[in-house]
């Protein structure tokens, strides 16, 4: 199978003209995913994107139904919530900070954090980033605009910055004895702002949009966000994974790399670098499924980590 796995061999005629590589060869702005739309139809070429937006907006709608319509299905916000008056859910990232800051929370808070922890440990840590977090809407919009405007370059911090930041967030929590990161955390601030009112938090959200658009491509979610780093750590052994199981059909159009929020995770699976199986096991993968959508050759699919078939 790995015979097909070397890049650059595909002749130009096989690369779709609107794809990243095709456009680069012709010197025009690429439209990644256009070939997939032609091959599979618009709906199938946006299946996971639509499902993901439905999930993000649906969760937001559940939180907003209370204050806007008086339907109190879910109370609170992503930091901690109560569903139907019985199901507590708490962000384990916050509980971790609480514990190092020296506060032992009530049992329902620990239970809520346990449920969330178990879910993401099982299904995939960064599912949170792609399917729940509202900031993803902002950074996806910035990435889309960046592609459409054909903006190149920028100064992106190293991808490991977020893990360092995660460590320092805990250190600062311990040093100040408070949830210091929550003063500036754009993730909780944005979600809380949508539900409880923004104040000047718009500035922080707008700042992230501009940072991702103009300075660092995928800068926030892919390189800085310590909350994403926390959930990535949870996803090391999770079950749901993307597999490049039809990698033999890859025509090196590079569209998946263009749309992927963590493009470094694709290569080992697609090109067989350092591994034999086609599973994307890197915990940085958010399982957003956008690579599945934009591939005209249906190379990718979402499966489990136990399915190593090709």
């Amino acid at each position, binding site marked *: 199978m790995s015979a097909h796995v070397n890049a650059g061999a595909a002749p130009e005629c096989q690369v779709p003209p609107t794809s990243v590589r095709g456009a680069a060869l012709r010197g025009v702005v690429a439209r990644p995913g256009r070939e997939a739309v032609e091959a599979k139809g618009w709906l199938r070429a946006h299946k996971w994107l639509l499902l993901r937006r439905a999930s993000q907006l649906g969760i937001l709608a559940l939180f907003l139904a209370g204050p806007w319509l008086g339907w109190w299905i879910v109370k609170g916000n992503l930091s901690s919530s109560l569903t139907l008056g019985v199901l507590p859910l708490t962000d384990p990232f916050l509980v971790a900070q609480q514990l190092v800051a020296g506060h032992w929370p009530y049992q329902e808070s620990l239970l809520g954090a346990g449920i969330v922890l178990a879910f993401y440990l099982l299904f995939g840590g960064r599912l949170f980033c792609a399917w729940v977090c509202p900031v993803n809407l902002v950074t996806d919009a910035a990435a889309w605009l960046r592609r459409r405007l054909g903006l190149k370059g920028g100064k992106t911090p190293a991808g490991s910055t977020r893990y360092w930041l995660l460590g320092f967030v805990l250190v600062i929590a311990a040093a100040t004895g408070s*949830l210091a990161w929550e003063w500036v955390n754009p993730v909780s601030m944005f979600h809380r702002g949508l539900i409880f009112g923004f104040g000047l938090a718009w500035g922080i959200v707008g700042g992230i949009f501009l940072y991702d658009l103009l300075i660092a491509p995928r800068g926030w979610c892919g390189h800085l966000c310590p909350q994403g780093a926390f959930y990535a750590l949870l996803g090391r052994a999770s079950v749901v994974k993307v597999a490049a199981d039809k990698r033999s059909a890859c025509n090196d159009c590079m569209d998946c790399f263009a749309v992927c929020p963590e493009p470094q995770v694709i290569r080992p699976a697609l090109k067989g670098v350092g591994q034999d199986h086609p599973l994307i096991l890197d915990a940085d993968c958010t399982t957003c499924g956008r690579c599945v959508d934009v591939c005209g050759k249906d190379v990718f699919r979402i499966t489990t980590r136990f399915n190593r078939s090709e």
Partner: protein
Amino acid sequence: MTMNDKVQPTGHAAASAPPARRRFLKDVAGVAGGAGLLALGAGLYAKQASALPATAIRPPGALPEDDFLAACVRCGLCVRDCPYKTLKLAELGDRVATGTPYFEARDIPCEMCEDIPCVVACPTGALDRTLVDITKAKMGLAVLIDQENCLNFLGLRCDVCYRVCPVIDQAITLERIHNPRSDRHAMLLPTVHSEHCTGCGKCEKACVLPGESAIKVLPIKLAQGSKAEHYLRSWEEKEAAGRSLIGDQVELPVRGLEGKAYGDTRVGPADLPQVPDQAPAYAPAKPAGGGLDSGWKP
């Protein structure tokens, strides 16, 4: 290049580390330094901005501010369960820790619900569930802060703060004193007793003054002095011990006050010696022409 490094003595290894390792160390230092600076900035900002404005009051049962900031996850469940929309979450720019719950008494005070739903709703313990009796809450302490504009201090009978107090006659009492301005009326001064005041802020809300209230709920730390521990209050010690700690005092008679309780030196008209009609044996000579003090009384 790697081979060259290998043959070098280990003592010089650090000085001539392979470029890959050096680059790695440099990258790590840069990344860690950047992340550290970002986190440090957040931490310092949090520390600097954690001073709560005096008019922002935490919900009942809130832990002391330092502990509260370690415990509150800013979920807003207390806000949702507040039936009077008293509580709100601080927004960025509100000068209160972003996302934490507070209220402003002059805006909407705490109605002191008996079941304290905000405390029940808190999942983290930032609002302490050991508080089950709302009259034991200590959200702040009311202070009659402007005695120049308080209508009762001006001699009127406004009494509104006293009337609205949910712990009337305990948290706020009206203390009657003489009105020296008219010299013939009383003033009933609203007086707050810290032992019973919950800091609900209904007095501050109800104060009839336009704009700012004359009575305000302040953080207890601002409103109250520290107790002078070295000063034993004899009346408290006496009550606790059932007797005076220094034994009964010798009561010496005071001339002219023989009929009164010991220590009572108040003088009423009846206590004044009955002056007979005859002229006193000695009277100071009056200045000629009356002088400044004519001795006239209404």
